[in-house]
């Protein structure tokens, strides 16, 4: 392989089972003699290593790359130009303009519009990149400073780091954040295959449709995994019709299975904890379908 195969797991709505599916794929690819590398791109709520069982931190790197505006009130004349120019609502009027650092994108507009040279930029910590060693390969995880923006930037850096560790048989699994925003787009850009994990509800299908649109836009092949499908079995036909209409493949159905939570509780991987459970069986089936698809598309030999 010239470059590693990159698979992203996303969902739209949160809590559908992205991390469970990502962890399982990592373990199964690893057992099938691939060099599996995980990227936890849910930098506001990173949980992938918890789902993989035991882990050990082998490297940590601080990323200081978030520009934040500050106002020098000795120079500020409270003209309000900066407040009017900021497109992100990051400056509020509290008897004088005040920067809300949690909302500041660091774009530089306030500095440019200030005629009194009262705005300066400084770089603050974006977050950490942590390399974890697990039984089933390396996981590159990001931890965004709480309340910091630039999650997309951190995700791009995570993917870059992961590519540095790749060998000739590497497969990168990116566990994306919930939603359809910047970090999810950064996760999807440049990847080969997108798995969308849905639940059997209209709420989930609706948000997943938006992720499909993003995948389409970046010309990524898409497959659907239906988690906890038997909680609403009547919905199965609707999901199939929806997948047909969107022209995406259904990779498989996972039943609701308490073993999934029990594995977390025991700080274990689902595959180790409950190798014969209904969920494991379904996930193996999904893995096999995925490998078939990847072969058919020419990504795997």
């Amino acid at each position, binding site marked *: 392989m010239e470059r590693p195969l990159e698979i992203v797991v996303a969902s739209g709505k*949160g809590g559908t089972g992205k991390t469970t599916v990502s962890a399982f794929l990592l373990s199964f690819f690893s057992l099938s003699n691939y060099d599996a590398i995980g990227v936890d791109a849910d930098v506001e*709520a990173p949980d992938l290593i918890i789902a993989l069982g035991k882990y050990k931190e082998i490297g940590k790197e601080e990323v200081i790359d978030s520009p934040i505006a500050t106002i020098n009130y000795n120079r500020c004349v409270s003209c309000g130009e900066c407040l009017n120019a900021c497109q992100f609502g990051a400056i509020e009027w509290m008897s004088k303009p005040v920067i809300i650092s949690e*909302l500041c994108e660091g774009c530089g507009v306030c500095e*440019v519009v200030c005629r009194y040279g009262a705005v300066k930029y400084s770089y603050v910590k974006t977050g950490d990149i942590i390399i974890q060693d697990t039984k089933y390969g390396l996981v590159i995880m990001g931890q965004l400073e709480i309340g910091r923006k630039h999650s997309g930037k951190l995700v791009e850096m995570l993917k870059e780091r992961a590519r540095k560790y790749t060998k000739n048989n590497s497969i990168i699994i990116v566990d994306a954040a919930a*939603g359809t*925003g910047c970090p999810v787009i950064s996760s999807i850009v440049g990847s080969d295959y997108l798995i969308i994990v849905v639940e059997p509800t209209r709420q989930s299908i609706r948000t997943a449709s938006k992720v499909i*649109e993003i995948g389409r836009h970046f010309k990524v092949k898409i497959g659907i995994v239906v988690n906890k499908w038997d909680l609403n079995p009547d919905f199965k036909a609707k999901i199939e019709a929806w997948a047909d209409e969107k022209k995406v493949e259904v990779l498989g159905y996972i039943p609701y299975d308490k073993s999934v939570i029990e594995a977390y509780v025991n700080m274990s991987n689902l595959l180790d904890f409950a190798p014969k459970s209904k969920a494991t069986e379904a996930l193996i089936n999904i893995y096999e379908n995925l490998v078939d698809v990847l072969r058919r598309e020419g990504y795997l030999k």
Partner: protein
Amino acid sequence: MNVISVGGGKGGTGKSTIAVNVAILLSKAGYRVLLVDADVESPIDHIMLGLERKKQKSVTAFSPKINAEKCIRCGVCIEKCPEHALIGLTNRVPILLKDLCEGCKLCFFVCPVGAIEDEGRNIGAIYEGENYGIKLIQGEVFSGIKQHVNVSLATIRYAEKFFEGYEFIVIDSPPGTGAGVWLPLIRSNIAIAVTEPTPLGASDLKRYLYLTNKAKLRTITVLNKADIPGGAKKIIYKIAEEFNSSIIEVPYDPLLMNAYVNEKPAVIMYPDSEGVKALMKLSELLINEL
């Protein structure tokens, strides 16, 4: 006027279920209630309320259009664009890569000859609806648009105009701890942190409580699905204590899931269920506190 932020970090813990049902319970208690769905990336409260939402407003962001006659090909906009969304070839008008543009408007301000105009870009919409006695205001960002924060901001600012007319404003926040969570928090006077008793729920709760603490907000932690064998109940109590947050438990109740699947609020469909009883305690607590 009381503004309640409903968040919690992890996705799928029940934020929307809690927000929608508590809003209805407060309304049943005789208060005027406004529900704001600020999870602009995955808004679903209209489905949970079983209503047809009506579009009220488009959300637009700045989008540069370069006037070729005025442009002197100086390259300043290309050099300054923080997203590298403008590219230029020698002696050519810069080209905009729309996918990268965040609409910060810096190019507009740095252009020395005023060659950059605002073409405007539709990035989302704001909707309204009404059912079960509560009004819903909901924002949604269009697929593939990076500027979800602009849509969150526009939604909250739009909703703020209505705040005065209500006794309770419940804001359903997105998962995570980003700007979309912070925007509602700084406008709230109480926060509800919805979590579940799993190690994942615990680790995300901690990040969320850090944020509510920073905003100096009193926070009630709602331990949803409290009796599932998640193994992290003790840890969650410890985290809540560490951040001075009280805890209310909502038991795992298949009827809540059933209501969710049927797109009807549990307080309407199963008013006597165990889950709803716990939610009533929460709404009573909110009424007493505020």
